[in-house]
């Protein structure tokens, strides 16, 4: 996966382009309003993305606690509804709390460090290969063996359509 551009950089780019390339050329007021609504939604997504996984995990763990607490508040109650609440809490008693996701910026920085190391290794391997060191061929093969499937997966994940847009 690319760390640059980040998902946030790409969304920001779309927002800027709607403002500078699209809106000044839109003459239909309804279309202009729709473009502004798109900007609002995209900006919202930018705000959601950094916290989305964390909030889901936090809220999951909080809900576990609340459901147990609710059952605790009705210890004196009876009847089918109270029984269902207690059953629900009992069923969740063994549910584990979800781990908090890693900080994405930290993951991206660590990923980038190793990516740069691979790059530097490739330059060193080339120097060895040009000096006639055939062992370096296997080193290059190892890097290619890692990068190939990975880039193919990135391409499958991110590519849309089967031709460049805006050309003949």
């Amino acid at each position, binding site marked *: 996966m690319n760390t640059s551009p980040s998902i946030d950089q790409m969304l920001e780019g779309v927002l800027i382009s709607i403002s500078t390339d699209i809106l000044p050329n839109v003459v239909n007021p309804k279309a202009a309003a729709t473009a502004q609504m798109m900007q609002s939604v995209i900006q919202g997504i930018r705000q959601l993305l950094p916290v989305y996984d964390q909030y889901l995990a936090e809220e999951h763990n909080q809900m576990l606690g609340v459901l147990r607490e609710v059952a605790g508040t009705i210890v004196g109650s009876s009847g089918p509804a109270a029984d269902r609440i207690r059953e629900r809490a009992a069923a969740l008693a063994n549910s584990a709390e979800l781990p908090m996701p890693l900080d994405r910026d930290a993951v991206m920085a660590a990923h980038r460090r190793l*990516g740069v190391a*691979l790059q530097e290794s490739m330059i060193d391997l080339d120097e060895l290969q040009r000096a006639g060191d055939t062992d370096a061929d296997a080193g290059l093969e190892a890097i290619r063996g890692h990068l190939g499937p990975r880039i193919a997966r990135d391409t499958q994940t991110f590519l849309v359509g089967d031709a460049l847009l*805006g050309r003949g």
Partner: protein
Amino acid sequence: MESQLLELLREYFPEAEHIEVTGFEPIPGGYSRETYRFDAVVRSSVGEEHHPLILRKDPPAAVSILQTSREIEHDLIEALRMHTDIPIGRSLGHEPDPERFGEPAMVIQRMHGNSRTSDLFHDGPDVHHADDVMRHLCEVLVELHSVDISTIDPHGRLADPRGEGVDATTWDTYIDTTVEYYIRSFPDVNFDPTVTFVLDLFLTLRRNKPRPLPLVLVHGDFNPANFLYEGGRVTALIDWENARIGDPREDLGWMTTMDILSNTNVMAHPVDEGGFLAYYNKLTGFDITQDEVDYFTLFGTANIAVPVNAAIKRRLDGETTEFMHLYLVQSSLGTVPNLLRLLDYPGVSQ
């Protein structure tokens, strides 16, 4: 912009008593220059003439993907028109002074013909013309590759048009200095560690040179979007800004890449000749192998990857806010599996 255009047209048509610009509108497509179509209605003592034209203008330098010269492009077009039968629109002139249009510009003839070359492929309406068009396109390319360089480029400006130290004195110096330019440029194109495969591509080109061929004038952006056709004939080869002295296999390699990116199939035609490469070999006697085309697919891709990835990096570094450069991060992925296959990456298929 239209009033400045009128001023320029008065220089190109000094005999005109009245000039009118009609239908002025931007043309979508063309990733490197801003282009506008218009008609010039020119009235003089001898009558009224209608000229279908195109204004081709440089974008601001920070946004520009390819830094090329309108003057060199103009001179090349006019030299080719004078000395060859290559179908090519006239260049009326170039305006180097950025005062007039904000950036240097040129005015060229708008040629007739269909620019939607995707109509020739898959279920397009002109598939029955595909063989004839590609046969003619191949013949045009062969004529281009056969021109006398000293006639077309008497001042040697196409030997190193980017000014990157490319030495086209011999085939070996050309390949060596061009690959050195790619490798030297890597820090400028290294927008993310995933482009390590681009570095691998550059280094592999240096380690695996093929046999030499005579250097020729190459189009430099020979791709399915850069020709027009009508019936079974090419009516124009367009967009000459990246033309230069190079190896003829570069144009074949780049077309191979752009066939993939454009979802077209130029290289498979003319079918009765065994495809574009076979027909090219028949016409030239170069006997170019698929392995050589593969090398120059990588070489030609590198030639465009350097300015394109450099533009992406400038965008990500905040030097510009151009959206096109972000789109290129996504759209250029289409060619990557083929590049990795040509580099023999394990586990990668086209």
